[in-house]
């Protein structure tokens, strides 16, 4: 197991550098003026251009500039927005809010998604199963921002069950509806995947063995099928986390949540490319770390992986 962990960590290193380099290249080194569109509708002020060129060493060869960028990034020197606010400070205040939103969303995704998947996988063809299949298909097809507006309209404006926008400080109660909207797409995929995985495992040979051993049906299902079925689902939740983070931008925008997503959302609207890129790089790094943890969890669930 230890070797597996070490191997995964080592594998992650080139990916982290490769990804951040790719982002850096996409942002500052694509053909054309690197500062085009980075300061909103107006062209950047000369002071800003000078500060950026200096901070990012855009005159240096690409690799050197990238190296310096990474050094700055990792030491928390993230620069300022066009209006002069320190990006690092902004992120510090925004991060806990998004963390809570994402946590809530993952709880919904895991509990409701896996629960619904198990129930419908056990009774395939039944009423609940068809309900799950149809509703998840619909949810998957509707882009997250549409779901956000619909939820805001029906549950916030029309029914008044939830606040239409989230108040300052983002208390947990206010975050329930946005978290559910954020989780909706992933939840739907998780439910479908769990269902398929469970149905497939129910037909496997080792389930026949378990039944032949005289184990009660409930034990056969809970002990011998659910854990095996969770394996691909866990992998998916990790890979999907990136989509969740992307969706946070939209969701925080719609519900007026001042988290990382909201930060990115307003930066996009104001065309502040520099802020967008910095925050996005951070989000990608978070995604990679989460993926690492998910891979470790996968090894806990599936012993075959540990010895590869």
């Amino acid at each position, binding site marked *: 197991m230890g070797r597996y962990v070490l191997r995964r960590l080592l594998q992650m290193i*080139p*990916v982290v550098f*490769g*990804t951040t380099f*790719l*982002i850096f290249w*996409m*942002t500052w080194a*694509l053909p*054309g003026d*690197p500062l*085009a*569109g*980075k300061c909103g509708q107006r062209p950047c002020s000369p002071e800003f251009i000078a500060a950026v060129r200096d901070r990012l060493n855009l005159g240096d060869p690409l690799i050197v500039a990238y190296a310096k960028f990474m050094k700055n990034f990792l030491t928390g020197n993230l620069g300022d927005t066009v209006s002069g606010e320190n990006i690092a400070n902004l992120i510090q205040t925004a991060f806990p809010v998004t963390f809570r939103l994402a946590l809530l969303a993952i709880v919904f995704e895991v509990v409701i998604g896996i629960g619904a998947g198990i129930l419908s996988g056990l009774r395939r063809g039944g009423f609940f199963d068809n309900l799950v299949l149809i509703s998840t*298909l*619909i949810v*998957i*097809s*509707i*882009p*997250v*921002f*549409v779901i956000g*507006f*619909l939820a*805001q309209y029906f549950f916030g*404006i029309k029914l008044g069950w939830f606040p239409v926008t989230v108040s300052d400080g983002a208390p947990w109660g206010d975050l329930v509806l946005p978290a559910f909207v954020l989780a909706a797409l992933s939840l739907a995929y998780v439910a479908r*995947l769990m269902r398929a*995985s469970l149905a*497939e*495992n129910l*037909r*496997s*040979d080792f389930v*026949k063995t378990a039944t032949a051993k005289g184990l009660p049906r409930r034990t056969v299902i809970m002990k011998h099928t659910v854990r095996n079925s969770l*394996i*691909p689902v866990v992998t*998916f939740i990790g890979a999907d986390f*990136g*989509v969740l*983070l*992307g*969706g946070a*931008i*939209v969701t925080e*925008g719609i519900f007026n949540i001042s988290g990382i997503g909201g930060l*990115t*959302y307003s930066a*996009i*609207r104001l*065309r502040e*490319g520099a802020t*967008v*890129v910095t925050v*996005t790089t951070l*989000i*990608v790094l978070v*995604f*990679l770390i989460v*993926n690492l943890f998910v891979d470790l969890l996968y090894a806990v669930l599936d012993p075959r992986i540990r010895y590869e």
Partner: protein
Amino acid sequence: MSEPTAVGAAAIARTDDHIPSGVERVKPAPEKPRSLWTDAWDDLKRSPIFWISLVLMTFFVVMAIAPGLFTSKDPTFCDLANSRVSPSKQAWFGYDAQGCDVYARTIYGARASISVGIAASLVALFVGAGIGIIAGFYGGFADTVLSRITDIFFAIPILLGSIIILTSFPTGANPSQAAEITKVSLAIAFLGWTSTQRIARSSVIQLRGADYVLAARSLGASNWRIIRRHIIPNSLAPIIVITTISLGGYIGAEATLSFLGIGLQPPVISWGIQINNAQDYLRTSPYLLFFPALFLSLTVLSFIMLGDTIREALDPKLR
């Protein structure tokens, strides 16, 4: 996703009988040769969902190609006097804040959205499947390098990556629709190809050890020939499925980018832009958001449903 396991029911032998001479017997009706595709087509023919999604998809594609068939109104003709007038018999979907006919704009909006979806899918298909097949077939060093590269691209979520790219390529004053569509499609495909690559690669790896590949090789077939005649046809099934489903996703991605304001830019008409403009009037004129959202969702739904039914039909384990 998950790997298949064996199914343990009784075997039903399916054979032709060879009858020795001299014994009288009734010969059963000869059967057509059955392949994965004919079996799948049999299943699909009978599935109502397949037909519904096919019809729906065709409906929207036709709308994209020939919007004039659905409306005679001009989507760019806007009269501020009509600002936010509710739906009526003259204007089925009402008018938006600028006084433009929502119905006409919704119909014309199909073209941009669906074009982006198709263009992005084609790029992702060729790049992704190409790299996946090479990585899977040749294995070894090539595979390691290509897979690491794929991992790097995979680590950037599509939405975030597209935002970064599009932020770096701001649109000029009066963009042409073609240029806008190309730009957004490439931005999406730049990161979207990774899922196709993974599917193609794992599909090819499974086929690589197949007996008929070995047989072809021992008969002297070149690698290219093996890829072209044996690998590609047999790995098509999962690739088709992922491409169809991704197509729906890309249409959604375009809408999201346009909604955020960095996708397609006006005067290009797209559903995402319409929804973006409609959000300020959610309380007072919800129909402004509802109609384009409906069309968008149905389009995405049709592609995803189609891909899903094809996948179920092609999956030998679900028999």
